[in-house]
């Protein structure tokens, strides 16, 4: 057996160095991705200080010429130039994707905490909460968006104060839909986490004279929400991906813009591979970010380390 361990160690070492190279590449790719996004957005907000609005940051022609000059890559030069041409539209779409996800996740969380607390500690309100979560988790998100947009025609009811924030009011409908839907899922995660907080913690809180609500707020939630982080990360990732469904109710986010260009140019392969990679980059960023958050708020003896 002793001899068997040796090659394994060598292999491990190779794998380790592979991993660190891989990690470096990933960090570089991430920096490039977010650099491109942020510069594109800022350029647009400032009315095209760097390049005219709608133009790629790097001229497509230059990219094509450069690649054409490199022997092995010449074949991909025109594809690369096409992708570069896409970037302004993709950056615009990604902005909406990010905004819709962030707003829906945050507002959904605000709704989810009372829903979960009601479900665990309420009586009548527990049934209301259960009904809400079951109904929203039991039907497709796309159908829910259809109800709000086509069925209730909510886009024409957007209040004046909110109208005009986005180029199209329908964005608010999408945010509403994702918020309501996400609240149901988040409530379910938080409920599970609250239930994993030991009974004795509540008894101890009550014993020092905290009221029931105070005990939930100061004792149960700080622990429960930490337990909830891993599944909450899942929800974050889900929302990023499912925000693409907003495209079906004409919200010009990333998927919608990709689809528009594809139906004009018929270059589905290239466009959707690039779109897929963009979503993947968003998703990976979100999960790395949440790993950080989890480390930051970690407390010995509590948390996800031991759990899936």
């Amino acid at each position, binding site marked *: 057996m002793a001899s068997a361990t040796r090659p394994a160690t060598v292999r491990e070492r190779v794998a380790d160095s592979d991993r660190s190279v891989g990690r470096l590449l990933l960090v570089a790719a991430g920096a490039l991705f977010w650099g491109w996004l942020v510069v594109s957005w800022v350029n647009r907000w400032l009315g095209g200080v760097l390049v005219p609005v709608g133009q790629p940051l790097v001229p497509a022609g230059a990219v094509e010429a450069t690649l054409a000059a490199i022997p092995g890559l010449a074949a991909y030069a025109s594809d690369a130039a096409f992708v570069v041409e896409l970037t302004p539209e993709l950056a615009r779409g990604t902005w909406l994707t990010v905004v819709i996800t962030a707003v829906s996740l945050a507002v959904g969380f605000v709704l989810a905490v009372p829903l979960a607390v009601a479900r665990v500690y309420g009586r009548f309100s527990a049934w209301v909460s259960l009904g809400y979560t079951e109904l929203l988790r039991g039907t497709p998100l796309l159908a829910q968006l259809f109800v709000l947009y086509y069925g209730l025609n909510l886009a024409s009811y957007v209040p004046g104060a909110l109208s005009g924030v986005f180029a199209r009011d329908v964005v608010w409908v999408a945010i509403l839909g994702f918020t309501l839907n996400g609240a149901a899922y988040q409530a379910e995660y938080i409920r599970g986490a609250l239930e994993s907080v*030991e009974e*004795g*913690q509540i*008894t*101890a*809180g*009550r*014993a*020092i*004279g*905290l*009221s029931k609500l*105070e005990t939930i707020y*100061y*004792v149960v939630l*700080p*622990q429960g929400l*930490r337990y909830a982080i891993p599944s909450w990360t899942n929800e974050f990732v889900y929302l990023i991906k499912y925000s693409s469904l907003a495209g079906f109710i004409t919200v010009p986010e990333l998927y919608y813009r990709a689809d528009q260009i594809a139906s004009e140019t018929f270059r589905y392969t290239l466009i959707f591979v690039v779109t897929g990679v963009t979503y993947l980059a968003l998703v990976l960023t979100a999960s790395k970010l949440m790993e950080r958050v989890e480390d930051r708020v970690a*407390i*010995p*003896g*509590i948390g996800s380390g031991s759990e899936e």
Partner: protein
Amino acid sequence: MSDDEFLRVSDVSKWYGEEKVLEEVSFEMDRGDVTVLIGPSGSGKSTMLRCVNRLAEAQEGSILLDGEEVLSPDLDVDELRREVGMVFQGFNLFAHLTAVGNVALGPRRVLGLSETAARERAEAQLERVGLGEQFDSYPAELSGGQQQRVGIARALAMEPKLMLFDEPTSALDPELIGEVLEVMHGLVDEGMTMLVVTHEMSFAREVADEIVFLDDGRVVERGPPEQLFDHPEEERTGRFLERIASHD
């Protein structure tokens, strides 16, 4: 009945559904007294203790604490618990808070002290139980004995007029029991009024003013430790004490 009477439990009964867990339990304590409840497991001693701060609800009888009826439906339960400290068998430390955080939570949120005042009070209480070095440790980083001492400090920080101890050493490894009993000894010396459920008979003999022996939810016998331990009047008391002694 002395003028100094502080706690008077009279004819307290409690059922869990059909099952009667306490039956007309009565005893009384003066200010500064230490009363120890003993009895086999399931005899209702922990339940009796919990009725005093209303973590359990007695259905019949009366509990007068400092002249006030604890069982009155109009009583502000949170107010009552502010004045009665409790130490649990399983410690029940708040897992997300440091030692100081655990002790300071009550003073900060219930008594409304400022952040700094609450912290100062917490540190003083932790010093009192000999944990001056562990202010910022989380429960998971402390030994069982240390955790229980934090639990005691947490109760003391509310400046209670009565302390309830619910088998405070039962969950501890034998070598850690001593440090907790030592802290409790200190409280006795300071004149704290204490109602204790424990199986530590030598501790009970040393500090108790009165021992109450419960079995099947009823007070079988009560009296000063010398009398109850050395000359039990009831046969059941004698048998229980023998069983405990043979285990030691």
